């Protein structure tokens, strides 16, 4: 066993302290948020740092009833539908790109992956116009369809990498047994690709759940809004009821933090694979 020198020990303690202080600046605002949600508004304004004298749940109930419930349900519907559609279309596309070769295959690949470089921000004005002409403006489909379209390039890129690395023997065996190409896709490729499907679904879900700009521009009715935009609305209606607003923030953040803590491994794998966050 090597003994640690006193100098090294001091460095270790100093660095650990710094790491811990930094961790505190990250976690404290989040904890502050959850705790303040349990205080009354008067308590809050007399001392913004304090602990609740009595833990009251009313803020959370109010925030839920004032709008979070509706926004939450909308977000669940939009996110779930978009994730399912993204995974279906992207896996089919990745299957096509890795298993078939046409004269223009390379061009199609560039076409799909090139979509990763295009920012939704640039297209928001013309998408607004397009969705209006298609009569989709101010419906959930005005979010779902653009969400899926803008995620397909990246998710296809992720899946393509995985599909390329899969051993072909099983697919060949299935083919000899009389399986159609769609059968192979459904019964051989997809089951083997489960890990990358999980990563893709999680990653897409996170982006859709947090998406703000499309949600702001393509939805007009309050009853159709998703959580991020709904929170802005809540901020407007609860001008001085800060603790209720804070409870609303906590209610919106907690589910995604839970999902992150539960599925950290899959999420991190996806987030670092392409170096593409939102």
């Amino acid at each position, binding site marked *: 066993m090597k003994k640690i020198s006193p100098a090294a020990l001091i460095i270790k303690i100093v660095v650990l302290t710094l790491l811990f202080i930094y961790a505190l600046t990250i976690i404290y605002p989040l904890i502050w948020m959850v705790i303040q949600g349990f205080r009354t508004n008067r308590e809050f304004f007399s001392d913004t740092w304090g602990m609740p004298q009595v833990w009251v749940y009313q803020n959370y109930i109010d925030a839920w009833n004032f709008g979070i419930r509706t926004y939450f349900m909308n977000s669940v519907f939009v996110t779930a539908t978009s994730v399912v559609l993204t995974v279906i279309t992207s896996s089919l596309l990745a299957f096509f790109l890795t298993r078939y070769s046409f004269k223009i295959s390379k061009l199609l690949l560039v076409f799909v992956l090139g979509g990763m470089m295009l920012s939704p921000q640039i297209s928001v004005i013309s998408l607004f116009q397009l969705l209006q002409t298609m009569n989709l403006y101010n419906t959930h489909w005005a979010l779902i*369809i653009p969400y899926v379209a803008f995620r397909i390039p990246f998710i296809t890129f992720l899946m393509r990498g995985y599909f390329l690395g899969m051993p072909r023997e099983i697919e060949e065996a299935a083919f000899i047994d009389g399986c159609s190409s769609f059968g192979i896709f459904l019964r051989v490729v997809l089951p083997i690709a489960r890990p990358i499907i999980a990563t893709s679904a999680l990653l897409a879900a996170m982006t859709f759940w947090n998406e703000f700009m499309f949600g702001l521009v393509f939805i007009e009715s309050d009853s159709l809004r998703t959580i991020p935009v709904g929170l802005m609305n809540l901020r407007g209606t609860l001008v001085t009821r800060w603790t209720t607003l804070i409870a609303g923030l906590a209610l919106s953040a907690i589910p995604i933090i839970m999902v992150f803590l539960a599925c950290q491994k899959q999420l991190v794998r996806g987030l670092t694979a392409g170096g593409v966050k939102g």
Partner: protein
Amino acid sequence: MYKSQKRALLYAVPGMALVLIFVYYPLILTFYNAFYRWNAFSPVRTFIGFENFQRLFSDPVIGIALTNNTLYAVISVIFQCGLGLVLAAVLENKMFSKFQGFFRTIYFMPVVVSFAVIGILWQLALHPASGIVNPFLHLIGLGAFAQDWLGQSTTAIYSIIFVSQWQNIGYIMLLFLVAMQKIPTDYYEAAAIDGATGIKSFFHITIPLVKEMTLVTVVITVIGAYRVFDEVFIMTEGGPGMSSQTLVTYMYRTGFRTDEMGYASAIAVLMFVVLLILTLIQIRVAGTGRSKGEG
């Protein structure tokens, strides 16, 4: 085995069509729209040639926006890439690897939370009367700096950038961690025999070997800085006045608040050009970096 071409097309069509109609077509439409004067809810459109583009050059807010975006980019590169790299190196060090999981999880946590939550939370925290930032400054003896962070045109954009760093350093750190975990440990062991440990090995082994990831993180943060919308819109809507306006928030304002959709499209075209230049620089730099590495 995969022969049926007709079948194959069926697999490709749904995805391809969506990307074509909702990703590529709107881009072309943006260019087309920039040559017209038109409003969101009216069918009247007037062709005005390059008028919208000429206006870009005489509009002082475009200057403010470009300055703010650039400020955003520079500060983000320094803090996210710089601090992200240092944090990753520290957590990869043998002395601290025991604690890596714990710190990594905490540092990364804000990345998964919607900026709507984070922005409103920090807006409350930065509030001059009832926030927690100013009392904290008083507590640590920096009370003289306490001020209305988001309410002054001199500090608003910096406060927004600060919150953005707070959220994203953990993400860049994670990218560096992944890159560092690919460095074989015997490199460090060999260096240790030669007497290079700690900071020396950081400069001589870690930094050169994560060069490619450094480039990736710089590209991500810079492009992100020119695309920023949520952060600014949620915290200040570009105010006070126009002081914290960025390209996208200003485009949103001209399009959906003052209803000049044509001019907003011209701003989008400007953004496209800026991002295209950045992407080309990225490809260029990545290319030379790689050929040097191989040669």
